[in-house]
């Protein structure tokens, strides 16, 4: 997999996240990274390797296994004037701190009548593909994208991995960054024009006129492969990378769908209640009269993700299913 955009420097997604962390840690003394094994171990996915030596244990802060405790502490530290970056190893574990995110981080600004903001960034690994089975493989971005009071982004390219963090830290409200586990090893070239990046807008990663494929995170690359395949079959697919899952960039989506008149959403979440459902509902609300076919969804099968490769593959959205869904809405 290669996340190449323009002709910038080649870098892995993992290194791009690390460079982003280094930069903000160097530039803003209020910033620190906190989470399980971010320091001495170097990060569960080796993202923060080397940062402990550079910034010391106060700012690269290893925590006990206390997700609610340290995420809550991140909220408190943000209220106290710091700019914490909290890492939750995997979205499945974030169930243990969801109370703090929903009931405090997302809510305190409203509850306090606008007195307190929570300038906190939470990074989480998400997604399947590494055969980690039923408790380490889910994609629950949709749940977070449901919560008023927070912002949710999903960098799919090395450029977004490299530059979204800085913008997220400038945000006075909590920002959740979802990093798909299958992207860390991906190499791509940094877009030199991307800095500073907005984190609000979707990006058209491939223009096309026949159908709009809407996706984000790890599924972007499968979708681009599908688009290439479709092109070989005479179908020009436009591929939208949502980038921001909350708020959703309706303008980019509707502009494209009004033009292509057909849409398929590719989302690694379980189908029922997926983010894809929300996008489908919005497309219907906003583009109904332009639609020439029902909106398609390619999502994960509704099963805790199984361990064996063939079953894991079967559970997740794959290129052939995307191609098939696109062909089906295009009608050829």
């Amino acid at each position, binding site marked *: 997999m290669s996340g190449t955009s323009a002709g910038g420097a080649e870098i892995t997604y993992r290194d791009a996240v690390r460079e982003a962390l280094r930069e903000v840690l160097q530039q803003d003394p209020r910033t620190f990274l906190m989470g399980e094994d971010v320091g001495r171990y170097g990060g569960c996915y080796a993202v923060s390797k080397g940062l402990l030596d550079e910034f010391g244990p106060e700012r690269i802060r290893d925590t006990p296994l206390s997700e609610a405790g340290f995420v809550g502490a991140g909220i408190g530290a943000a209220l106290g004037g710091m700019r914490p970056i909290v890492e939750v190893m995997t979205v499945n574990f974030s169930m243990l701190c969801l109370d703090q995110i929903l*009931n405090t981080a997302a809510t305190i600004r409203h509850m306090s009548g606008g*007195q307190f903001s929570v300038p906190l960034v939470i990074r989480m690994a998400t997604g399947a593909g590494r055969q980690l089975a039923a408790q380490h493989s889910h994609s629950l971005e949709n749940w977070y994208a449901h919560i008023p009071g927070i912002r949710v982004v999903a960098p799919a390219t090395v450029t977004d991995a490299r530059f979204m963090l800085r913008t997220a830290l400038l945000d006075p409200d909590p920002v959740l960054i979802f990093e798909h586990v299958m992207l860390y090893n991906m190499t791509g070239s940094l877009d030199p024009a991307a800095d500073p990046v907005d984190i609000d807008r979707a990006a058209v990663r491939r223009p096309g006129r026949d159908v709009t494929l809407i996706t984000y995170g790890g599924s972007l690359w499968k979708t681009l492969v599908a688009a290439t395949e479709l092109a070989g079959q005479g179908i020009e697919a436009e591929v939208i990378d949502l980038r921001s899952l909350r708020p959703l960039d309706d303008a980019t989506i509707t502009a494209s769908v009004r033009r292509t008149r057909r849409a398929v959403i590719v989302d690694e979440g379980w189908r029922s209640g997926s983010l894809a459902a929300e996008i489908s509902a919005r497309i219907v609300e906003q583009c109904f009269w332009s639609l020439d076919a029902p909106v398609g969804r390619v999502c994960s099968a509704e099963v805790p993700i199984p361990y064996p490769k063939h079953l894991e593959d079967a559970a997740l959205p794959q290129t052939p299913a995307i191609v098939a869904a696109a062909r089906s809405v295009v009608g050829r």
Partner: protein
Amino acid sequence: MSETSDPKVHLTRSHVRALYQEMLRIRRFEEKCAELYTQEKIRGFLHLYIGEEAIAVGVMQALQPLDAVVATYREHGHALARGIEMGRVMAEMLGRQDGCSRGHGGSMHIFDAATRFYGGNAIVGGGLPLAVGLALADRMQGRPQVTVCFFGEGAVAEGEFHESMNLAALWQLPVLFVCENNLYAMGTALAISESETDIHRKAESYRMPAAAVDGMDVVAVETAARRAVEAIRGGAGPVFLECRTYRFRAHSMFDAQLYRSKDEIEAWKAKCPIEHLRAWALQAGSLHAEDLTAVEADVLAELDAAVAFAEASPWEPVERLLADVMTPEAPS
């Protein structure tokens, strides 16, 4: 009244008067709230602090203006004792725009940036991680401040309590944990919720210094709090204070109190912290009958003004429904 050898608590006439007045302010305020509740001017859940006033008042004596406070849904007393204007607290109870949280939160969600009063949290145990983070921010920024965190003995059973205690002790953070042990969590007696009912002993398992204090004795509380805050400010790490107390009223306005006996309630009412201080002060000659009358008059005047202020305050316009969900000046 407990004698104190601590030089920090000077039982001057004015101090005794202040303690008395502070407790009476809370008592009369809440009696009025109960009245306004029956008039349906206050709605939702209303949790009265009546009987427990010595704790908030005693502890607040030990704080400096820049120290931080985290409380629960039973926090009117803490808000008043911390110095939030009574009118603004009352307006919050009524859900008015001049409420300290613009009326968004009501009884359970009192916030005030000026006094660093961070709620007002209706998730039992939810405030503890926040306190850890506030203290972490102070420590990382080299500020000599203390964060006080109030919670009930019911919260001790929550995982968030455990995680927060460990984090605070592990990182030696400047937090004063104040457990208001009023023997019941709603209808659940302490012996039904904890295998170890001697709550302050639990702090030892985190190697956190702890003490139990008579929560019906404002001077005892003040003494213990001053000692603890001084130690914390000196860098000794967190301290745990268990204040033994009792709520004289129902848990909230919906509680038939099937779970405890009238006798028990009466026995505790006989230990009323306000009566207790009054009797002692009169006997010791610190206060005279005319002081008491003057205090009562002051308090009633303040209360009347507060109610008038609150009732005159406008409602938040419906157009502002979404105004405080996100910070308006968010970038991009």
